[in-house]
């Protein structure tokens, strides 16, 4: 049966699109609004973008977010790569190992964040980036693991055998064959982990200390003082950065294939 022939397919699709993207569109639209009240349109302006560029707290929060997302992305991608290579061959208990690896996807984040906070207080780790980085690495692992694992699963096992057959030892085989073939998966994993960390609020909120405010935490505290178009502008920039990263990594993956 042709799916397009089903009644209202087009209408329902349009409805879902509107439902998903209208709020974001409204946010982007009002970020170019000159009026101080975020929801009342007066005229087009780039004032709010100019303002956030010179706002030192926003600049610091952006820097913190980027440092945190980069560290979390790198750390979790490395661990996920090791996990993917370690689970390459089937073994008893593989399903359990994978479930544990992917647990952060289903565990309530607030519970994990509170637990992490309590642990760090108990063992005397200062709140701030030193606490946020390991916590972010932990919950980003499944986001990095899944694309890497998918890539590895789609790889022809004869390729590694062929490399060894052609006199490459295990290390050279990994460097010249396994790693280049997995690269698109690694890039995708890193991007997903980076973006996930970049937009995390809960864990960062619990573990941030003085001077380690991230963008989402800053937005949250700013919004309590009232919604301003400034927040619309920051959110728009975050959105563009996230989408640009994912699209770039997708395109890179396509080229390498």
């Amino acid at each position, binding site marked *: 049966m042709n799916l397009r022939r089903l009644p209202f397919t087009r209408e329902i699709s349009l409805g879902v699109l509107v439902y998903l993207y209208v709020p974001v569109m409204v946010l982007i639209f009002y970020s170019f609004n000159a009026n101080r009240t975020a929801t009342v349109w007066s005229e087009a302006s780039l004032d709010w973008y100019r303002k956030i560029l010179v706002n030192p707290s926003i600049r610091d929060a952006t820097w913190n977010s980027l440092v945190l997302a980069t560290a979390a992305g790198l750390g979790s991608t490395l661990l996920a790569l090791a996990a993917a290579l370690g689970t390459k061959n089937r073994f008893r208990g593989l399903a359990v190992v994978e479930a544990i690896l992917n647990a952060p996807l289903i565990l309530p984040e607030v519970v994990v964040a509170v637990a992490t906070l309590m642990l760090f207080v108990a063992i005397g780790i200062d709140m701030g980036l030193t606490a946020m980085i390991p916590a972010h690495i932990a919950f980003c692992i499944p986001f990095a693991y899944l694309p890497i694992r998918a890539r590895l699963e789609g790889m022809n096992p*004869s*390729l590694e055998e*062929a490399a*060894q*057959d*052609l*006199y490459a030892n*295990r290390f050279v*085989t990994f460097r010249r*064959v396994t790693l280049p073939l997995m690269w698109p998966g690694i890039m995708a994993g890193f991007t997903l982990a980076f973006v996930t960390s970049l937009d995390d609020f809960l864990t960062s909120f619990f573990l941030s200390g003085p001077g380690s405010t991230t963008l989402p935490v800053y937005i949250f505290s700013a919004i309590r003082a009232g919604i301003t178009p400034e927040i619309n502008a920051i959110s728009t920039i975050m959105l563009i950065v996230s989408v640009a990263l994912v699209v770039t990594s997708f395109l890179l993956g396509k080229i390498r294939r």
Partner: protein
Amino acid sequence: MTNPQSAISVQSVSKSFGRGDSAIKVLQDVAVEIGTREFFTLLGPSGCGKTTLLRLIAGFEELDSGSILIDGERVDHLPPFRRPVNTVFQNYALFPHLSVAQNVAFALEMQSLSRAEVIRRAGEALEMVRMAAFANRKPSELSGGQQQRVALARALAPRPKVLLLDEPLSALDLKLRKQMQIELKQLQAEAGITFVFVTHDQEEALTLSDRIAVMQGGRILQLDTPRAIYERPSHRFVADFIGDINLLEGKVDGGAIQLDCGASVAGNFGHAPGDRVTVAIRPERARLAKSGEGSFAAEVMHSAYLGTATLLQLRLADGREFLLRETRIGEGAAPPEKGSRVSVHLPDSALQVFAA
């Protein structure tokens, strides 16, 4: 008992997959000596252990017991990258992220040759398989036959002592396969190295090989030249697996074999009276005859004219089918028509008799 002339010596090798009661014995006490510059074929149905034996020689599997020697040196404890053999994989296993030239140069770079030497020898190898024009292409831009040639060039470039080929032609269509068979044979002569070839295609094995090992259930049933295997199969399985053959069940009765179809064959072929036996005869060795001594009646079910011969599908008295390939029809004599009755003669010299 190391044979100094052997390129490969496989000595009582056994291999199982899995553990305990669920272990599957894939190879059981297999021994074979493969000569230098020999085109040696491992032939058998899927699951007979032929690919496992090849993978053991390449080093991709570890053996449970026994030993493997290449040029007199024990290699079974060595990883694949330390063995002087190269493999052509069934799916070619070309590196998709490298160009054709980089694929072929891979092993040469591992041998730490100079850059100029690597380029020269990779070029030579590509020349040998007539793929030099495609050096800068990616494997995904090549046809199956071209990928096959690149895989051959890549495996031959480092000049291994032995080339292992794991059903390398099975993915090609019939016409290309025939062409590649000829090229393989020429390449082997040019390169002057030992080929160990795995296939389930008996025709391919007969065409290409100097010697064939027919395998079944993890054992080598017969190891001989293609001609000997075709003409003098040692087992009923080998007879049935290689080429077309008629298998007639019967019982030894004194100095003759009484066949279930009513005919009898003189001589007991070394079997004791009362034994159940199978008499095997190739379709081209059975003859149409005038009725009488040593022949039996059959009905023509189907007659196919093949140009060089006529293939008759006959039905025997017990309802079984019998194939007969008659090359002497012609010169005015029309082939027997469908439904007509004929007499079949089985020459003694054409018979093989196996214990049933």
